[in-house]
């Protein structure tokens, strides 16, 4: 027995040793390359800057440790977001630290799009561009140089435009997504976006303005929404969302009114019909502050139609109901609510505007505001003053420049082709392809990726082939940049100096200062500095137009005017802010800083400046029209069209522009039946390509955190999908998660179907943002891009791309 006990001991010791050992071995295996060296946290700083994942302009506060950005938070005292951020803003570090960023200037060495690149130094790169541009100028063709700009915030916009002016080209072409500005121009004579005083509204009637997903400042809209829902004392504001899709906004509204796409104008005028007929409109405002409500006579005695006759004679509710698909009772109820529960405001953005009848639709919607007197009153349409930057004298330019910039624009904006447009990006490819009015010899891409984000049918990819020299400023290898000859990568928004003036989303002008939160990670360069460098390298009058050493200096100088003006306040804690606001409202200006340098330092540290005080004018302050009033009958439109018709009858021009109305009606808001691509019998569904809250335009797909939350409402991640009404899907034999072909007359693609009761039976919805062919490891080759099958249709007057005009059919794949 002795022996056995010893054996037992031996055994058990061995067993335990074995277990302990295997524990260690296992640990080794499991945590193979663990070596997660505890990262020594160094000094920590919080740096104020501005988000640029969307145009929202939210202030950010970035936690930086050892020169690495750790977390983006909201900037507490920023008047737009008050310390809050949206999902996209929160994900911003994945833009900065995207491993697939372009790490320095590169030139193409293989064929176009062959992705063979060679690095070069910034000096070389800038010299190359300067030489090229000088050569083009030498040929006397500076106008053949164009810049396409997507998100040129603040002074970058002015700088790019000025560069071309000094150089000698009229072809600064910018994305313009806003239907509102045009409606405001036609009725109020001001060529700008307006804001809405939503906090004080009691009735918000939104025509497809998906405030809680996209829009001009999503976080601001969210803040206001939360406030209206549960914080504002007194009666709750009513929110009505008119939209073909149950968007997040529609879901959170008090009422969702599904509407047939492209028919918002009819609904708006139907509402006006009720309001006018029932005498519910603001008589005092309409009488005193508007023009063209009643029928009227002009100087030579010709009688003209007024808004009232238009809406009363047409727009019978049964007709409107048939067109829009909105029941008559609903129209009546909403109209009464809108007119009675004041202040009420009618808002809209791309959803209603981006159709072939967009301009008139947008006008019709805006006229609702005038009907109820909601212009420049609390709770209505407001117009914040601009940020008082130092203005620049126009660049003098030499004779070549003067000649060049007097040439017609490549996009035909403002001509008889698009009489009301300033920028028509979608016209550029056609012009290039046809050499109309002339060929383009160099194209610069700033913050835009048209090959991806414009309908393929518009033809950017083909047009690029015809441009001998393409330069992209993008820090990312997107589809368009992949076709460039030269890439001059910009810093990302967390590495650069930039102003971000936001003057359209609230009552106040807000100037956020974007400043580098970390040192640039790679050999990139601020596009502003590159442009200044190119100008300098070209010398002469071009260089002379730019007195600044770098963009930071340019920005600093522009801010001097704010310092001297001494109005407004830097972002400050609530207590201070209330005081300054009260004083400002009484007209006080308080110069708080002794010197500009002191002011500048504080401006940068606090993150920006704004003007909290606002003076409501009750309307008249906002009318810069010929009549000095709000024009239901747009004299501006008439004048513009007459000018564009150049002596020929306006009706002829209208026909060419694809406008159905003739005579006075063409100058009044009215409903034009929208044109669609594809016949209803072959292509029974409208394709609504919306922008989900969790993408940042075409840019969100490269950010994995956003990819991973993208389709929460439909339970899908990292992919695209098409939303189909469940009953319709059943008829088609499609079940949730099936792969389907989405086919338009222009082509088809495959994606997953999601049954969604928030889809109208005649509309299918698809988020835009996936289906990249480039743009890094996370974006590339995932889902489908609806732009590949969208057709090319536009609003003839304003040049809006009719994004929502393509019809499709579905079939099981």
């Amino acid at each position: 027995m002795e022996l056995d006990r010893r054996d037992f001991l031996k055994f058990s010791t061995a067993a335990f040793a074995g277990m302990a050992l295997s524990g260690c071995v296992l640990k080794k295996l499991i945590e193979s390359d663990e070596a997660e060296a505890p990262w020594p946290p160094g000094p920590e700083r919080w740096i104020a800057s501005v988000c640029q994942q969307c145009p929202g302009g939210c202030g950010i506060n970035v936690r930086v440790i050892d020169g690495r950005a750790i977390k983006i938070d909201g900037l507490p005292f920023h008047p737009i977001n008050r310390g809050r951020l949206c999902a996209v803003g929160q994900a911003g570090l994945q833009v900065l630290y995207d491993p697939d960023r372009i790490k320095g200037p590169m030139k193409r060495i293989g064929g176009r799009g062959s992705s063979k690149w060679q690095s070069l130094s910034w000096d070389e790169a800038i010299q190359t561009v300067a030489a090229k541009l000088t050569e083009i100028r030498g040929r006397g063709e500076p106008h053949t140089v164009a810049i396409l700009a997507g998100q040129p915030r603040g002074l970058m916009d002015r700088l790019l435009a000025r560069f071309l002016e000094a150089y000698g080209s009229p072809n600064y072409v910018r994305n313009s997504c806003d239907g509102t500005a045009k409606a405001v121009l036609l009725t109020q004579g001001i060529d700008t976006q307006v804001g809405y005083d939503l906090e004080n509204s009691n009735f918000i009637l939104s025509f497809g303005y998906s405030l809680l997903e996209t829009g001009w400042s999503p976080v601001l809209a969210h803040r206001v929404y939360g406030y209206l829902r549960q914080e504002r004392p007194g009666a709750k504001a009513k929110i009505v969302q008119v939209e073909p899709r149950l968007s997040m906004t529609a879901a959170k509204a008090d009422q969702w009114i599904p509407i047939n796409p492209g028919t918002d104008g009819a609904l708006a005028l139907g509402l006006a019909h009720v309001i006018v007929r029932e005498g519910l409109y603001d008589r005092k405002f309409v009488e005193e502050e508007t023009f063209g409500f009643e029928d009227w006579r002009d100087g030579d005695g010709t009688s003209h139609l007024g808004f009232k006759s238009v809406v009363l004679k047409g727009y019978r509710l049964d007709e409107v109901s048939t067109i829009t698909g909105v029941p008559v009772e609903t129209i009546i109820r909403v109209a009464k609510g809108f007119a009675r529960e004041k202040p009420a405001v009618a808002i809209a953005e791309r959803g209603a505007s981006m159709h072939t009848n967009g301009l008139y639709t947008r006008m019709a919607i805006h006229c609702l505001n005038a009907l109820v007197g909601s212009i420049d009153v609390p709770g209505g349409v407001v117009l914040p003053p601009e940020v008082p930057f130092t203005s620049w004298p126009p660049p003098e330019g030499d004779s070549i420049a003067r000649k060049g910039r007097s040439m017609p624009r490549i996009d035909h904006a403002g001509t008889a082709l698009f009489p009301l447009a300033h920028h028509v990006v979608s016209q550029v490819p056609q012009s290039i392809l046809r050499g109309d009015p002339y060929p383009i010899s160099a194209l610069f891409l700033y913050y835009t990726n048209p090959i991806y984000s414009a309908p393929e049918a518009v033809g950017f990819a083909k047009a690029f082939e015809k441009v001998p020299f393409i330069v992209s400023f993008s820090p990312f290898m997107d589809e368009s940049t992949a076709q460039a000859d030269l890439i001059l990568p910009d810093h990302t928004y967390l590495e650069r100096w930039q102003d971000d003036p936001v003057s359209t989303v609230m009552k106040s002008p807000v100037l956020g200062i974007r400043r580098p939160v970390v040192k640039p990670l790679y050999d990139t360069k601020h596009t502003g500095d590159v442009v200044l460098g190119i100008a300098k390298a070209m010398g002469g009058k071009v260089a002379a137009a730019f007195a600044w050493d770098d963009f930071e200096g340019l920005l600093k100088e522009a801010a001097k005017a704010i310092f001297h003006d001494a109005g407004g306040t830097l972002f400050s804690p609530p207590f201070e802010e209330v005081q300054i606001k009260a004083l400002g409202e009484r007209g006080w200006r308080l110069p708080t800083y002794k010197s500009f340098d002191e002011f500048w330092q504080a401006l940068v540290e606090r993150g920006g400046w704004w003007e909290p005080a606002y003076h409501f004018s009750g309307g008249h302050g906002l009318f810069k029209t010929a009549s000095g009033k709000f024009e239901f009958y747009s004299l501006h439109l008439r004048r513009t069209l007459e000018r564009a018709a150049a002596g020929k009858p306006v009706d002829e021009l209208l026909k060419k522009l694809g406008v159905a109305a003739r005579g006075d009606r063409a100058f009044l808001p009215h409903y034009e039946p929208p044109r669609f691509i594809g016949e209803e019998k072959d292509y029974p569904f409208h394709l609504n390509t919306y922008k989900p809250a969790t993408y940042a335009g075409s840019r969100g797909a490269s950010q994995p955190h956003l990819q991973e939350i993208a389709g929460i409402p439909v339970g899908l991640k990292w992919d695209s999908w098409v939303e189909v009404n469940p009953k319709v899907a059943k008829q088609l034999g499609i079940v949730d998660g099936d792969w389907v072909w989405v086919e338009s007359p222009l082509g088809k693609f495959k994606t997953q179907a999601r049954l969604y009761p928030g889809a109208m039976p005649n509309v299918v919805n698809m988020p835009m943002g996936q289906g990249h062919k480039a743009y890094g490891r996370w974006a590339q080759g995932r889902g489908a891009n609806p732009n590949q099958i969208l057709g090319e249709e536009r609003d003839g007057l304003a040049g809006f791309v009719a994004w929502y005009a393509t019809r499709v059919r579905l079939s099981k794949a």
Partner: protein
Amino acid sequence: MADARHSHDPDAALFQPILRTGKGFYVTAGALGAVAAWAIFAWLYQLTHGLGATGLGRPIYWGLYITNFVFFIGISHAGTLISAILRLCQAEWRRAITRSAEVITVLVLFFGVGNVLLDLGRPDRALYVIRYGNLRSPLLWDVMSITMYLTASTIYLYLPLIPDIALLRDRVTKRRRLYRLLALGWTGSERQQRRLEVAISIMAILVIPIAVSVHTVVSWVFAMTIQPGWHSTIFGPYFVVGAIFSGIAALIIAMGIIRRAYHLGHYLRLVHFNNLGLLLLAMSLLWFYFTFSEYLTTYYGGEPREMAVFYAKLSGKYAPFFWAMVVTNFVIPLVILSNRRTRTVAGTIVASASVTIGMWLERLTIVVPSLANPRLPYARGLYMPSWVEWSMMAGFFAMFILLYMCFTKVFPIVSIWEIREGREKGLAEAQERIESYLPGGGVVREG
């Protein structure tokens, strides 16, 4: 190698497997070894890649491994428990089958525990359950009761082995050292025999509550949570019944194979299969009774969250598994075993195979559907085990069979001394006992 002296021994056949090993054994062992080796590769793969190598995800956090854990632990009730009960009841027919049953228990327990280890995200920290043990956790109860069960079962297997080992020590030329060591100096003296019998009886009594506790506690791992489909008071007995049920089935299969492979038809006779078959039938009915009352109460209560799981099993994604379980656990055994004509050796083996599959499915339909239908909405997916999980499962079965085979090569799989004892004393004893049941016979001790 056969010892000529003993060729006239009536039980010589029982030594044969130990004395002679045919080609079939090596081929089978080789094949099983290959599967086991593959499993080891899969295991290393899982270790280095993390549990991501499985098909698990949220919310289905447990899958094949835990199913197999419950299944294996269930099978373990074959041996010790059944043999203990039969021993205590002095069922004479037990003599030929207890050993093969007990071996199942001891071996299969390792694989049960192995499955839990496989399922751990951090097997390297497995001993933390001792170091930081939280007594409130049913998993800790499991650790305790399984350890106890394993110890008791091993002793319980070992004790009746001692006389046989002594036999081997005396008769077989190979592995002398081992046999000598394990025989613990057994001489077969009266004293030793008495002591052994007492020890065996004590263990038999001890082992029953432990075995019952084991599967009760295993069931409590589920029942102690408040998850729909798990939080049930009858889970304890339900699991124990299921365990014995599957244990008997496993035993019958093992016996069938042994009988065939080692030509032990004389020892493992129709009566064994018949009796076990009847036991299996009884368990099948009992199992059905439990299943029925479990699901009826759920259905009758109609609590929505419970019903979600209920329907997932009866008509939803897991319906094929559920109904296959009902067929294999109830319909097939009922049909085969309730009919004397089909309750043959082959018949009981078929029924047992069916039950084995059925009980595995039962474990699966207990573990997975509850997880797949959490209370709050969540994108629910169907769980598909990965190649690693299938490989580990195949590997564990292979290793189990391999070890079992090896056991039969080292120790007699039918208890020789007990058979002899039965032959020598059993008859008289049984006669006496039977008489005692009858009026007028034996000594009546009335309370």
